[in-house]
């Protein structure tokens, strides 16, 4: 488990160094994620230890969001001040995102299935 954590943190560290050095717009952990995918593709998938630790972390990912979410206690004023705008923006944009992704992907998949058949 410690070795797997070391690998994950090394990727995050490499990503953060890269981001700082090149002034990239992506956060360090995202670059670390890209780096690890690249390593898997080049050298083969994760070993048992890394796989189990990763799955363990991802299984409890919900817990990791709690500290940030509790930050709502400090944002109640901002939320109240912008309540109307948010009540419109969040539902509209979420429905649009669902529709656009779903409809375009469905078109592609129908074409792909037709080509396979």
């Amino acid at each position, binding site marked *: 488990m410690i070795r797997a*954590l070391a690998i*994950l*943190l090394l*990727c*995050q560290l490499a990503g953060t160094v890269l981001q700082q050095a090149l002034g990239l*717009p*992506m*956060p*360090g*952990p*995202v670059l*670390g*994620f890209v780096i*690890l*995918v690249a390593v*898997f*593709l080049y050298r083969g998938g*994760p070993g048992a230890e*890394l796989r189990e630790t990763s*799955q363990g*972390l*991802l299984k409890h990912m*919900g*817990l*990791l*969001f*709690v*500290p*940030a*979410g*509790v*930050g*709502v*206690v400090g*944002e109640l004023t*901002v*939320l109240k001040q*912008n309540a109307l*705008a*948010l009540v*419109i*923006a*969040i*539902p509209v*944009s*979420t*429905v*649009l*995102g*669902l*529709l*656009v*992704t*779903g*409809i375009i*992907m*469905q078109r*592609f*998949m*129908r074409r792909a299935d037709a080509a396979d058949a």
Partner: protein
Amino acid sequence: MHNFFHIWVYLRTQPLLWLTITLCMWEVARAIDIRAGHHALSNPTVMAIVLTAALLLLTHTSYQTYFSGAEYIQFLLGPATVALAVPMYANWPVIKRNFLAIIVSLTAGSMVAAGSAMLILRALHAPRMVIISLGPKSVTTPIAMGIAQDLGGNPSLTAVFVMITAMFGILVYPVVFRVGRVTDWRARGLAAGVAMHGLGTARMLTIDETAGAFAGLAIGLNGVITSLFLPVMIVVFGI
């Protein structure tokens, strides 16, 4: 009684207390979720947040004090984001085969969601900080918070928006797919992953395995794509 008060005053400022309370609230929330049979409206993360936030308000504890303990949990978001590489690699053959379709649909959906959200806020004269914090709301929380931080938004506010978005999405997606005539499970899964990340993926996994796989890969890809286009979009829209 006097002694208890002293202990409380002491503990209140220590990382130990709030770290422990966060973990306990998470366990309570999970127990409730299991009792509720993992109902669509019962989400352990949201429940743990509400319980913990209520406790902070009741005890007049500042978020800063709370965070001195909770930051140890928050720190794990970094390695957890990197760990998303494992399911991504597991799905690689499927991704490779449908690469163009996935990238085009996901980018279009993600840009429309982020763009429309930010433009509506701007039209209604919301402050710049709020607009930027809302931009990455469809991305999975650790990535969304990182993006918000880098662009000058408020990561805690972003985390709240991510949660509200996902909960709203869970409520309306069956109707939206019916109205939009989206019947293909691959398309449904991808859309759910783009619009409501982890919550959508968990939901899709319980309904259809293919949809779950597509939703899962949408999480990582959406994070990468959003972190690329959002800075450009903010400049183009003049936000």
